[in-house]
């Protein structure tokens, strides 16, 4: 127990990869054994994350780069290069760890019907979970980069092998895009390492001594582009519709639910703390990009015929709120932005799972190909309405709170931009309602008169997310309280730079 408490983060990170080796050792014809063990292996980090959540100190005040970082684990890794195995969570990473731990078992359940290469699939999936967890908790820049790239490899195969018809194209496009982003980030990492004195990869040290870095504008843009590709911020978004549409359901969920947050997490963790002056200067630039994302994503979503593509574009739109929120440098905006990261993770996961459910039955995703199926599949319809209402920001559901906070924060700084962004909410409402109407309401398409309702497994994946959507919509403090100290620290950092 003592050991578990003191190594909580490394356990959460490495249990999936250790488990993946077990999965690899199982005989390949025992598909069910592999599925169940993968489920168990992903549930352990979830339980540990709940322990982490319970033990997380929400009151940490104090304004230094190390304050608020908890569950620290630090070991020497490569002494000559001053690389450390340095992990910890603060208010920024804690919600992300929770989100990741929650989504992964759900995705395992959603992958239950994978038949081809079961062993390889779950092996890669577990490897992916280690990469994601590690990237969120790493506080050594080099360690962060390793995990960041470790996510990439399984993703390439998961999209490429188990994806849809254009999977090969989507996989390579995703990989090349992200690789470009990563190598740019790598150059900046090395540059920061060489510029710091003594040389270090420690993120908190780098943030403290950021005055030593030269070429700040170039570095800021390099990092920003590297992370923007992941978010994805317009105009680096073109990989996303392909990857999301071609990926199998569970992988779309991971992509939209967690991987996209990696980008905004990186911007907050790296750009904000290490180059605060540049970040302050580029605030308006980021806000404009955020608004473009909101409007552009929503408009694109509106014109999609493919339901999955619609959800993919809606992700671009919703990530725009995050960018707008964090670019406002108000407590409300930043809180809203980070909360939106969490909420979007939950809501979009639900949406992709719902798309997967209907695709499994109808074998197509044409929005116009359905019609009036609400009475046939009442449970499914209920969950779909819930998810789409959450996506459009209906009061009482979680996205409403985060989007309202974002707009509230942004309005104090950018009045016109925020007004434009608010019209995005109208477009969002339009495409969500229009989609619901075309699929569930109206005249019944006779082809689907015998459509079966959701199964037990599908219900188990969807209902927990639905509960979170409603609960956080009414009472958001469980998540909001986690991030407040960190958010005000980040905000102060930037505001002081402005003065």
């Amino acid at each position, binding site marked *: 127990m003592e050991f578990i408490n003191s190594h909580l983060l490394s356990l959460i990170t490495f249990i999936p990869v250790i488990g993946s080796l077990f999965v690899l050792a199982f005989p390949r014809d025992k598909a069910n054994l592999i599925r169940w063990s993968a489920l168990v292996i992903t549930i352990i980090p979830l339980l540990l994350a709940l322990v982490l959540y319970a033990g997380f100190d929400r009151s940490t005040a104090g304004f230094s780069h190390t304050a608020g970082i908890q569950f620290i684990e630090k070991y020497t890794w490569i002494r000559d290069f001053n690389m450390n195995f340095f992990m910890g969570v603060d208010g920024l990473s804690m919600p992300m760890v929770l989100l990741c731990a929650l989504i992964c078992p759900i995705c395992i359940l959603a992958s239950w019907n994978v038949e081809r290469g079961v062993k390889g699939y779950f092996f890669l999936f577990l490897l992916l979970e280690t990469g994601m967890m590690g990237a969120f908790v790493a506080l050594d820049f080099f360690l962060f980069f390793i995990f960041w790239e470790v996510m990439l490899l399984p993703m390439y195969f998961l999209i490429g092998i188990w994806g849809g018809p254009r999977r090969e194209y989507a*996989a390579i496009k995703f990989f*090349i895009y992200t690789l470009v982003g990563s190598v740019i980030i790598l*150059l900046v990492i090395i540059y920061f390492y060489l510029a710091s004195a003594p040389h270090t990869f420690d993120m908190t040290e780098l943030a403290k001594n950021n005055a030593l870095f030269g070429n700040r504008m170039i570095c800021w843009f390099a990092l920003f582009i590297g992370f923007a590709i992941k978010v994805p911020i317009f105009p680096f978004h073109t990989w996303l519709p392909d990857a999301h549409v071609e990926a199998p359901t569970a992988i779309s969920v991971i992509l939209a639910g967690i991987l996209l947050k990696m980008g905004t997490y990186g911007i907050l963790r790296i750009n904000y703390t290490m180059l605060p002056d540049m970040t302050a200067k580029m605030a308006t630039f980021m806000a404009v990009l955020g608004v473009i994302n909101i409007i552009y994503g929503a408009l694109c979503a509106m014109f999609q015929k493919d339901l999955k593509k619609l959800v993919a574009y809606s992700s671009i739109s919703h990530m725009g709120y995050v960018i707008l929120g964090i670019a406002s440098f108000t407590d409300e905006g930043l809180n809203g932005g980070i909360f939106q990261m969490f909420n979007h993770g939950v809501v979009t996961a639900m949406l992709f799972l719902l798309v997967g459910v209907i695709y499994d039955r109808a074998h197509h995703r044409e929005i116009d190909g359905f019609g009036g199926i609400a009475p046939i599949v009442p449970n499914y319809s209920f969950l779909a309405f819930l998810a789409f209402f959450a996506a459009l920001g209906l009061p009482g559901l979680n996205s409403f709170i985060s989007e309202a906070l974002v707009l509230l924060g942004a309005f104090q700084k950018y009045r016109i931009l925020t007004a434009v962004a608010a019209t995005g909410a109208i477009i969002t409402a339009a495409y969500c309602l229009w989609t619901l109407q075309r699929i569930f309401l109206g005249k019944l398409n006779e082809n689907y008169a015998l459509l079966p309702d959701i199964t037990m497994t599908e219900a188990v994946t969807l209902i927990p997310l639905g509960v979170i959507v409603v609960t956080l919509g009414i009472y958001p403090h469980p998540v909001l309280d986690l991030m407040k100290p960190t958010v005000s620290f980040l905000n102060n950092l930037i505001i002081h730079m402005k003065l």
Partner: protein
Amino acid sequence: MNNLASLNYFTAEIFLSGFIILLLVMSFLRMDRDNGIGFYYLAGVFGIAVTLILDLAGWGESGDGAILFYGMARNDHLAHLFKFLCVLSSLILMVFSMVSRETNKRFDNPAEYVLLILSSTLGMILMASSSNLLMLYISLELLSLTSYILTGFADREEKTSEAAVKYLLYGGIASGVMLYGFSLLYGVTGTLDYTAMREVLWEHKVSGMVLSISTIMILAGMGFKIAAFPFHAWCPDVYEGAPTPFTAFLSVGSKAAGFVIIVRFFFQIFGAGDGGNFEILGDILDWPMAIAVLSACTMTYGNMAALQQRNIKRLLAYSSIAQAGYVLMAVASRSQPGISSAFFYLCVYFIMNFGAFLAVIIINNELNSEMIEDYEGLVWKSRKGAFLASMLAICLFSLTGVPPFAGFIGKLYLLLSVLAKGSSLYWLAVIAVINTVISFYYYSRILRLMFLSRRLRGADLSKLEKSDYLPYSVMAGLAFLTILLGIYWEPLDGLSRLAATFIK
């Protein structure tokens, strides 16, 4: 140090020469050539292993930087590290030759094959320690001449002979040009010894024009050995035509030997200065910049040309050109970390490139094809196919330079040494990372066919047999090292730091 005292530090070379002569005599005496295959291979492995042990023993007791045979050779860490690398690659070549169908059954004269490998090993280890132009030339030719023969050794089809002749012609011209460079250099400095040459440059003013021309000519000869652009034209044809085990050796061992002579030549003669502060000595062209440009061209050309290859050996040939470009980047940084990182990268490259070639050899044994399209659906064919495809994927990812594989750490070292040089070489680092992305594109073509495609092409795979254990375990070992060094590489880091200690 006088000749007699020097012999103490020369045990490995002496043993190897003696062993070669012994084996030569035995091959004449032994007439029953049919069942002698296993014997000669085993003898070769034994000879190389003993050389390796003697070399390591000699390393332990070596006075660092001792000058042997009145300046002909230097006995320092750099020499021993590269000897180690070269001898190991010969060992791997022997193992691969036993594994590959191209080389293990067809010869009626395995003794010659083994002898040639041993001779080229001797050439390489002499190259690693030579610090005299004459010594350099002789050892280089020993390696080159044996390489020409080995390329055309398994004379099975036209392209093999074509490759050998091409290699011979190119090699002849390259060494002629280099020799001309040597003579010019001798003309202006009056000596062939590196240390003496450096003193001359330090004390006297020599014609910058002649110095620059001779340096360029010598660089051409050495660039030929490492297949740097624009001296690479032999490389794809030779790699394609030569027996695959020897191709692997050419791309690793012979390339490492090429790098050590470049490092020695430029750093011992021109890289003078105190306390790690390298001023360019002599009235000469800016050679680090020349190497930097060479490096940028080499990696870009290699990667661009690899994009369209359909033969896996040709593709790996172009990829190895690009990899040489990466290593040259570290040489261009003209610093101690640069040399360390070059050695580090060559070690990592040793593991991952041999891994990739071993996978190609085994797959070639199974499918009887070198064409990439025949790899289609490999992973789905059987457990054997899944294993081979995964191992090859690990090596290819590592060659791309993606974490958590060793290739990434190697690239990191190279980029660190280049960026540490300051803003004058930033452009090179940017070109290198762009090349990383390009290189993934052609590696991913192999991955795509092996993993993503749902069609099965090419021949079926055989069942796992007892004879498969050796290649498969070597394969797994190389892949394991590729991952291990990507996660924990401190020991190798310590070794590679030693490589740069010859610069005082």
